[in-house]
């Protein structure tokens, strides 16, 4: 079980919830379960979001494992210069 914080504009797509507990071992499973529970998140996930695992920002690499008890933040993917 990991605690996922939906951040910025993502919270609105999950019905205003910002913290969710999800049983997921990697990013792929996390995304799949999120999309099942909150269909409004699916297009956002498809467009690409960033995942912060214990403070380090990863992109949406499916195989990235989520350590038990890790702090997960989902952030919008950013533009840079």
């Amino acid at each position: 079980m990991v605690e996922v914080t939906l951040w910025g504009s993502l919270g609105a797509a999950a019905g205003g919830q910002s913290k969710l507990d999800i049983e997921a071992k990697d990013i792929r499973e996390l995304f799949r379960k999120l999309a099942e529970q909150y269909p409004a998140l699916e297009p956002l996930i498809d467009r690409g979001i960033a995942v912060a695992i214990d403070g380090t920002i990863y992109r949406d690499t499916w195989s990235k494992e989520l350590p038990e008890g890790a702090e997960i933040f989902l952030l919008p993917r950013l533009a840079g210069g």
Partner: protein
Amino acid sequence: MNFDPRYSNRSFSSVGTRPIRPDGVDKVTGRARYGADFNMAGQLVGRILRSPHAHAVIKKIDTSKAEKLAGVKAVITAKDLPDLTDGDAAMYDILDNCMARKKALYDGHAVAAVAAIDARTARQALKLIEVDYEVLPHVTDVDEAMKHHAPLINDAIFTEGLEEKPVKPSNVTKRTQYGHGDVHQGFAQADFVVERSFKTEQTHQGYIEPHACVASVNPDGTAELWVCTQGHFVYRQHCAQLLGMEASKLRVTSSEIGGGFGGKTHVWAEPVALALSRKAGRPVKLVMTREEVFRASGPTSATSIDVKIGAKKDGTITAAEATLRYSCGPYAGMWAEIGAMTAFACYKLENVKTVGYEVLVNRPKTAAYRAPSAPMAAFAVESAVDELAKEIGMDPVDFRIKNAAQEGTRASYGPVYGPIGIGPTLEAVKNHPHMKAPLGLNQGRGMACGFWFNFGGQTCTDLNIGMDGSVSLAVGTVDVGGSRASLSLVAAEELGIDYSHVKAIVADTSSLGYNDMTDGSRGTFSSSMATISAARNAIKVLRERAAQMWDIGVDDVAWEKGHAVAKGEKHGNLGKLSLKEIAAASGKTGGPIAGHSELVADGAGVSFATHICDIEVDPETGSTRVLRYTVVQDAGKAVHPTYVEGQYQGGAAQGIGWALNEEYIYGKDGRLQNPGFLDYRIPVCSDLPMIDTQILEIPNPNHPYGVRGVGETSIVPPLAAIANAVSNAVGVRMSHIPMSPPRILAALEAEREG
């Protein structure tokens, strides 16, 4: 592939040295080929017709006269770029921006284009295209655009992110919020509260090379595109999607790039050039004029920001809040959101809240500009932080040190920080001789901090070892300022050979796998990671070949300082095999030796900088002069320190220009008044002092060498550092960027009149 990206403390022999870049001689002899330096047989000249109106319905376009002009080979409008975006809203915006469909949304918006045998004919043809416009009311100011009565730019936009779904369309596309804790409670604990409003005007990246490309579409559907870009793989994807082509059939070659800073992350003219070439059946060269670059590429947001910060007497910040309104041009963006994420990232805050509003205006589509959105937020926050320090009676550096984020701090944008450099940059500034140098009359010193995320992303690298033992490194990351030198150093380091035996090139889209563009300070971070990975893969092959040559097991072969070494006493008589010797035998041991790497570079590691500057103000004219400037920034590990310094200096110079004189000036008619380098005033050589730099190296735990991105952060602090210096010099707090002489003089006069 089991590549371990974790940092390991080690000594270096190549990394950290300062050799001459591999592309250097071409660039000092005029041989390097940029966007406009390439030609194809039979090529036509492409030109774009642009809207003279800020906001207008395109009722009709009659191209018949232009088509009849001798020498005109193709004329296109939006009809020739049909909508193939399949519900992808972001791509649709790109398409509409490349060629206006129903409405022209800003002065300079493309409405038609021609390809002709020469520039004169093309220019004449543009004059023969008749466009029937119905001019609409327009809005160019970010605050005006948010008002209820403001002209509506897109009536299908309803503000996202509000608690209640809006019933009326709006120019505000989205509201976003970040933060944690309870700011009301936080402000209640504060002994001092500073609350201020700020504005910043729109600026342009100001790269010296205008957008340029040569497009050639064949009747069989294959195509080539030569173009100056920060990301040729991204350009390929976008162009292929907009033109309905298979990506693999479009080969994109990135030319040398004459500056981008975010402005060449986005397609504008390239799909138009391809569409012209497709219609004309000949190659088309399309080069923007400087005026077109200003009117119709992607400047940064204009902003309006409110900041409120509270602190206790002892200097502890108890709460921080900001509302940020960023202009996006006429299409939805996420610029205010980035501002809301970065605004307070330097500080350790119990209670913080930021709200961003994305605002549509009749200006060109906003694009990224070096740490996009962060400089404006930092200007507002760091100005208020300085004022708060003053009210408390604390030294501004000490005040920041007291509140600086550190490892374990929850960032205002969410996650918890790992090892970071804000504290060390502040300590370095506190102890810097610059802080103790005397100042004269009307002179002031200011300092400010800045933050940027840094990106990683998809990266592809090929490392090929020639039969003579020299190494070709093919990377997919466009080199905007010396990364071929850095990556050659990394390859030399990993292989244990001399830098002079490595030659790095940027490969085209048909020669290498997909690679993200050079943005988010990711170039050296990502590609060095992929280069290390590719080199390690090559070393594996080299060890296998050496094992064959010795006829021993590969596990008994180690790689040390450019040589295969046989391990163990039983092989004591085998000596070493150099990379050169192994390469020479490669034809007999299994063929060419190479290492490849395809990876997603993650964990870029955030970046912080603190700047100091001295300013002199002429109180009679409001004129300013930058007397001294110092940049202190964390690089993680500086691979080629000279180019790291160059990034620090260049970012600071752009920030100085932004702070003092650069701005888009729109007339009442909604047209851009200053689309040229004469009146869009970027700093000239005599405007600036030497820019001193201090590189700190706080290793990034997620990179084998500890590298962090360095390209962008240096543009974040200057706006605030200069505003603070002006305030300290002449006692007026400037709340509007740029701090041009008329604005400073007006502020001084207002102060004198009390």
